[in-house]
């Protein structure tokens, strides 16, 4: 229970409202637990660690298992940067060698710390949890699926809400999905299914690379939920959006997903769904109402002139 309390108290120091950008200097942050954390990073901060083997009476160099490496830079740039390692992990980890029993340590889920906390009310973690429980991912929980499979607690940072660069957010968010769906060794940890070839599966999508760079996987694969910024209800593949006009239309789906946050500050220069045009251009969704009206007027005038001309021609013919 102690780690939970500590997290709750420190949530004010996380700095969740600070916009992140690619060139943000994460090293500027100095953790109050830097010294304590360094005891862990000394071994877990890189691929090689060194320890004294008292039985052999000498220093031993060993390779750190890749899944147990946590980059200092990534951790101190993450949303959990102000934590001490032992806020979430057992105090017993401070002794080395670690007890084998510690591997059985129970992990917290997001809702364990963030649920019911007023400071996090705007994120609506309860709705996120409900979304997750209705998603296909929840069915894999028995097999070991947890929040951490997508949101690495050591490196995760809020992206959609704070980033100034939407392309970065798209890349960051899509990499979360690809970490399992395009990495078969990770995929195998959770399912016995055959390897998925993401590119082949999306063969039907015109301008595939443009779509991959301009929208997130969840735009098509998650159910839109107006109560949360990012829907966590991942649908079965049969329910994925396949109709182009879900996005390529005036009532574009993208406005309630990818551009949901930005749409509050929608540009008003005559374009429908103008906010999309800050980053991209979506045929069918971006139309200019002035151009629409102007073209209709021109077209109407041409029809009128033709009808007038035709009228005089017919009158001349009658008078012959």
């Amino acid at each position, binding site marked *: 229970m102690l780690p939970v309390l500590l997290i709750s108290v420190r949530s004010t120091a996380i700095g969740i409202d600070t916009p992140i950008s690619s060139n943000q200097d994460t090293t500027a942050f100095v953790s109050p637990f830097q010294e304590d954390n360094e005891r862990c990073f000394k071994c877990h901060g890189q691929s090689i660690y060194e320890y004294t083997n008292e039985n052999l009476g000498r220093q031993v160099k060993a390779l750190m298992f890749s899944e147990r490496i946590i980059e200092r830079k990534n951790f101190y740039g993450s949303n959990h940067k102000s934590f001490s390692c032992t806020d979430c992990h057992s105090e017993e980890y401070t002794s080395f060698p670690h007890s084998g029993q510690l591997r059985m340590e129970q992990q917290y889920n997001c809702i364990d710390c963030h649920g019911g906390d007023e400071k996090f009310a705007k994120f609506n973690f309860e709705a996120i949890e409900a979304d997750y429980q209705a998603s296909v991912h929840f069915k894999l929980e028995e097999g070991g699926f947890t929040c951490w499979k997508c949101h690495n607690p050591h490196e995760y940072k809020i992206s959609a809400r704070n980033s100034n660069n939407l392309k970065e957010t798209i890349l960051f968010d899509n990499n979360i999905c690809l970490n399992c769906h395009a990495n078969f060794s990770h995929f195998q940890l959770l399912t016995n299914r055959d390897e998925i070839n993401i590119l082949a599966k999306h063969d039907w999508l015109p301008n595939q690379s443009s779509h991959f760079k301009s929208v997130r996987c969840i735009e098509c694969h998650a159910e839109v939920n107006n109560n949360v910024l990012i829907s966590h209800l991942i649908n079965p593949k049969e329910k994925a959006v396949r*109709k*182009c006009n879900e996005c*390529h239309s005036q009532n574009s789906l993208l406005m309630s997903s990818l551009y949901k946050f930005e749409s509050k500050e929608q540009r008003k220069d005559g374009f429908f769904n103008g906010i999309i*045009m800050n980053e991209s251009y979506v*045929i069918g969704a971006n139309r200019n109402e002035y151009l629409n009206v102007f073209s209709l007027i*021109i077209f109407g005038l041409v029809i009128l002139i033709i009808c007038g001309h035709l009228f005089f021609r017919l009158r001349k013919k009658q008078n012959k």
Partner: protein
Amino acid sequence: MYLYPVWVRLWHLLNAVLIVILIITGISMQYTGKAESAMLVGFARAVKWHNIAAILLIFNYVFFVVGNFMTGNGKYYRIGKRNFFSDLLKQMKYYSWGMFKGEKHPFPVSLENKFNPLQRISYVLAMYVALPLVIISGLGLLFPETVINRFFGVSGLIITDILHITMGFCLSVFLLVHIYTCTLGRKPFSLFRGIITGYHESDEE
């Protein structure tokens, strides 16, 4: 009078079919809604047919330009500086009231002058300005990775698309006027028959 050689007629026929497909599918893409509309082609089908027709149009356009270069047909598209505006005005006056008063055509069709000044300028604008622009911008939209990301702070794709739809619109208006003016021959279907058979029926009774 044999005015339209086989290659011109074939090019024109294919061009006409492709332009109609491109306009219908283009409007369908631009004005697509979430619900299917009987007036519009579904987005996915519209994209597919727009792309196919566009690629064929490019080849057909190259055929037209090369054909004009290789044969004497190109001379009909040359605009001389001499009397250009006065001739244009003369033709416009004829269409506006001269023809209703029974005046004779100021520029009767001949082997030397296939097009009247108004046709000449509108065909040059359509074939050598609007069509190249619509092709270039269309290729940009077909291969969006080739488009400049930002141009004076505005997305290159937006500029490309607006250029494409504006030129597409101009060509749609041209098509409408072109079809109508083609009813101004000796009889309403004379000129249509001409572009099919190759023989122009003279206005003279």
